[in-house]
Every structure is written in structure tokens, then in C-alpha cells.
């Protein structure tokens, strides 16, 4: 004649409650991680046909970004240089180095170097490089410290939240126009609240967040 449920089952509500809280917490954590910008392409570092080192070129040699990516100021697109750009120097420097064979081949055959694109925006997003670099937004904000990378990796999330974050607080990211390509710039004396806002006002940077700014 015994009750089918033993006595400990009277503690079930508490157990269920505790379990529910645990499960709920887990779900929230999971959602926060996977649904938020922390989980994107960050860390993507494909093997390139040529082990080109930005660290050497842009960092140690101090080349300007625009030497190779010369379209960045003029166009929505920041171009990958053609082999001829490389050959400007490498017809002299390391001219027989094995590591540069694909470049020379490309230069001779007039075929593109099969570089693997790392930073992509989806088709439904319009991103204009010239608009950003000509308004005091540095490369470093989206691409990270390229000048310290031997091999380029996806450093920032480039998620919608990432874009919006900057668009809402453009004055915190803006810098003097001559410092845009200086990836090591220190904002000494250039405070976002005063100089940042002033410059943003001068350049007409509104950091609009309306849909059609990016989704056209």
C-alpha cells in the first residue's frame, strides 16, 4: 500500500527550480556567447600563396598602407595590389628568392596572385573604405594592428554590432586625418570628448545608424 513516490520527491520542486536556474543560466550564457559578437570569424588566418609579412613591410620597413592598397582613398574598395606592385622592389630586392616565385610567375604570365580574402562583408552590406579613411577613421579600427602581424588574421568581429558600436560613438574613434595610416598612433592630448567631437563636427561625421546607410 505504499505511495509510489518516495519521500525525497517532496523536494522535487526545489530540485526542479535549482535545475531550471542552472539550465536557464546555461542557455543565457550560451546565447550570449553564440549570439553576440564574440563568436564570429575572429582568428581566421588562411594560408596565403606567398608568406607576405605585413610586420616586415608595414612595421619594420615603415611602408605606408597606401603604397600597395592605393585605391583605399579613392574608392569603396581597398584593392589588393597586383604583382607588378611587388615587383617594383622585388625586381631588385630578393629577386631570386624561392618564396617569391608565385609573384614572378604572376608578373610574367599576367595572371593574378591567388591571395585568399580574409576581411569580407556580406553582399547585403555596403562598406565604403574611402568614406571612412577620409573622415579620420583609421585602418586599425577594423583590421587591427596589421603592422605587427606576420600573417594577416581576422582580428575584429566585423559583425553588425561592431559597425553599429562605432557608428554610435564615432567621436571616440576619429583621429586627425594625417594619423589615419599610423597604426601606432597614441591619442595624447586628443580627447574624444573635446577634440574628437570637434573634428567629427568639422568633417561632418554623423555616424548614422539608419538601415539604409549600409543596407542599400
Amino acid at each position, binding site marked *: *500500500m505504499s*505511495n509510489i513516490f518516495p519521500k525525497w520527491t*517532496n523536494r522535487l*520542486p526545489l530540485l526542479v527550480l535549482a535545475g531550471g536556474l542552472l539550465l536557464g543560466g546555461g542557455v543565457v550564457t550560451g546565447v550570449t556567447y553564440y549570439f553576440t559578437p564574440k563568436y564570429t570569424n575572429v582568428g581566421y588566418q588562411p594560408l596565403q600563396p606567398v608568406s607576405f609579412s605585413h610586420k616586415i613591410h608595414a612595421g619594420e620597413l615603415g611602408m605606408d598602407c597606401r603604397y600597395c592598397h592605393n585605391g583605399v582613398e579613392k574608392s569603396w574598395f581597398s584593392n589588393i595590389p597586383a604583382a607588378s606592385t611587388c615587383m617594383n622592389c622585388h625586381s631588385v630586392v630578393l629577386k631570386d628568392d624561392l618564396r617569391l616565385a608565385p609573384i614572378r610567375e604572376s608578373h610574367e604570365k599576367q595572371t593574378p596572385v591567388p591571395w585568399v580574402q580574409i576581411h569580407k562583408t556580406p553582399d547585403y552590406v555596403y562598406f565604403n573604405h574611402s568614406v571612412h579613411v577620409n573622415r579620420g577613421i583609421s585602418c586599425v579600427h577594423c583590421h587591427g594592428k596589421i603592422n605587427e602581424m606576420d600573417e594577416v588574421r581576422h582580428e575584429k568581429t566585423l559583425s553588425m554590432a561592431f559597425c*553599429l558600436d562605432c557608428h554610435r560613438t564615432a567621436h571616440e574613434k576619429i583621429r586627425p586625418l594625417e594619423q589615419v595610416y599610423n597604426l601606432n598612433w597614441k591619442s595624447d592630448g586628443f580627447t574624444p570628448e573635446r577634440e574628437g567631437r570637434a573634428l567629427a563636427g568639422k568633417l561632418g561625421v554623423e555616424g548614422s545608424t539608419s*538601415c539604409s546607410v549600409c543596407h542599400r
Partner: protein
Amino acid sequence: MSHAYGILAEYDTPAAAMAAAQRVRDAGYTRWDVHTPFPVHGMDAAMGMKNSPVGWFTFLGGLSGYTGGMVMIWYMNAYNYEIVVGGKPMFSGFYAFPVCYELTILLGAFGSIIGMLILNRLPRLHHPLLKNMRFATVTHDKFFVVIQCDDHKYNETQTRTLLQTGAKHIEMVEE
């Protein structure tokens, strides 16, 4: 090992159970209960019970649903991410109303049912009465009055006599 939980009296009609309940109430017992297959109209008064406070849980649930909804919508659509749609104001109680209304009802309903469960100390799957075979007819057509042994007025013979009138059967329930 088993010790007594209480004394159980079985009645055939709601009127007999109600009469017994009135006697127990007037005798001043506190740890006792009436068990019926359906809510018997007037039994609360016969047991001397107060109005149930479940309404407060509902009220709190509903209130938090409404205010929570309004704050959420204001934060999301008018503060954190302002976005112009259809020429409407960034925030207006009008467009926010349908959602807040639903949230009021949703949380009010949760408040009611959770309030009921908390006040009733349910779920309680293991219970001495649920071991008693005679008590199994409580959800069928029988009416029971149970007085617990730990009631300060409990006295086996006196309590038994008190329940006697109209009772069909009386027995002790083991813990």
C-alpha cells in the same frame, strides 16, 4: 517505526462533511483539513478560512509585465537603437500597448498559478494520505475530514467523538 499522522473521518455527503467541519472549527483546531472531490460551496466559511491572497501574486505579476514591457520597448526602440519607422514617434504608449498588454496577462497568469502552488505547498508528491487506500475515493465521491496528531488540541478519543456524527468510517492514518 511508523507513527500516526492524524485521524481520518469519511462522510458520504457534502452536508455531513460540512457539519463536521463546523464542529471542528468551533472546537478550535488549527491543523486539520477537509478533503472533497470538488470545491464545496460554503466550505471555506465552515472551516473559518480567510479569503485567498492569490490575487496579490497576480497583481504583482501583471504589474511587472506591464512596466517591464514598457521599459523594454522604450529601451530597445527609443533609447538603445533609435530607428524611424512609418513616421511614428520613437516611443509612444500606443504602439507599445499591445505587447505590454500581453505581457501583463502572461506574467499575471504565471503569478496566479505560481502563487497558488506556493500557497498550497504543491507539488508534494509524497503525502501520508496518499498511502491510505480508503482515502483514494476522495477524488471519486467521498468526503473526508482529517485532523493531524500534532494539533495542540488533539486527543484521540475526544477528536474521534467530535468527528463521529454523520461519519461513515473513522481510522488513524500512519505517517
